[in-house]
């Protein structure tokens, strides 16, 4: 009887340990976290618009009035420059790393002239850029990415049906391009 009790006790201890390992390790290999889904949308450095229905990668707008576009990128080679402008009542962008932790977010209130102009780069690239800043990047917001891979989510609102066209134009013309090295 005592041996059964010890076996159960050892089993409970093992269960606690296994539970801890599962919870801590799960984010690394679930295979269906947001970063994997955004990468499955298509090529990197391209904003893909989402619809109200779930697409193949399993992403959707999530809100009847929100229009979303996602772009996966890698700043290991070159920095990535996010640009967008349009006549929309509200837009916001959030940059996440490959573990889906938020690195940066902003909305149009803190933008210059209502246009999106953000540059994501690694620490060394940022130092180089700040030493010789090209003229077209003088008003760009610089975001440092500790890890090179990540994805960006650009959102705008269409509170009524008449705003749909402007929202679609805003998201379609948004850019997620790699900055050409000089």
């Amino acid at each position: 009887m005592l041996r059964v009790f010890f076996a159960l006790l050892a089993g409970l201890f093992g269960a606690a340990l296994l539970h801890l390992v599962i919870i801590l390790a799960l984010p690394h290999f679930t295979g269906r976290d947001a970063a994997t889904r955004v990468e499955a949308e298509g090529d990197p450095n391209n904003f893909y618009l989402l619809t109200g229905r779930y697409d193949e990668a399993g992403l959707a707008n999530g809100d009847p009035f929100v229009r979303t576009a996602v772009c996966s990128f890698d700043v290991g080679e070159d920095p990535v420059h996010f640009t967008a402008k349009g006549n929309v009542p509200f837009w916001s962008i959030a940059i996440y790393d490959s573990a889906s932790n938020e690195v940066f977010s902003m909305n149009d209130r803190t933008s210059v002239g209502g246009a999106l102009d953000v540059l994501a780069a690694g620490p060394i690239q940022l130092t180089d850029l700040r030493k010789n800043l090209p003229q077209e990047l003088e008003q760009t917001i610089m975001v440092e990415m500790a890890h090179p891979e990540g994805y960006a989510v650009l959102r705008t609102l269409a509170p009524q049906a008449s705003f749909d066209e402007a929202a679609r134009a805003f998201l379609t013309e948004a850019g997620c391009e790699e900055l050409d090295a000089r």
Partner: protein
Amino acid sequence: MRRRSRCRRWRARNDASVVLVGPPFDLPRVGGHIAPWHSTLPESVVTLSTDLIFKFDLQGRKVFRFPLFILITLIVAFGGGIMISLYALDATQGFGAIKLGAWEAFPELQTVDADPYAKSHRARAGKLLYGSAEGLTFTASVDDSGERLNAACHYRISGQTPPARLWTLFTADNAGNPASLQQALPAALNSWTVLRQPDSSFTIDIATRAEPGNWLALPQAGTFRLVLTLFDTPTAGSSGVIDLSMPKLTKIGCGNA
């Protein structure tokens, strides 16, 4: 030679039902038959391993011994560990929620400061979350008195939202996705389309049957949730949470009451 006979002596002393073997070439027999795999292994290995796995009872049948307890331990460890993990992941969304009346939000769910449960939940769900400067999502799955929101009942949201540039409100299923209703039914409202009183407060009726004023339709039956998203709001970083007032969510009646 000495090790083998010591082994045999220990076994003979401690286990009277074990078949004693004779000189090196005499193999264990059960009912007069030699088990085939014995013939290729040295005798000490055979006897030790067979001793651990099974012993022979007085009728010569094999009986399992130690592995029963090892089996109990392993089953409790793996089964219990996996079940606890699945339960913990399904039951909660992690800690760090702010709850204002019936409305619950997780302002740090998308950040690196989220606790491990929240991160696991986030990785399994795979949704695109709102960043801190984008917006904050409040979900109500119960009304102000703590009862689950049910499509058979009629609810009313009244009051003001915390300060935000825009907000949207929609009925959702239990997974947080917009409820699928018929095309023409109003399933969502936002701060630009809601009808307000002169003091800019509003009243929204939520029912399966049409109501005058602001009305949100419901699916025919089952439980549902309400999702209120505040865009460009300082609510998440607000230290004085008590000062924030979310609209009241009250149940007016159920069925035809």
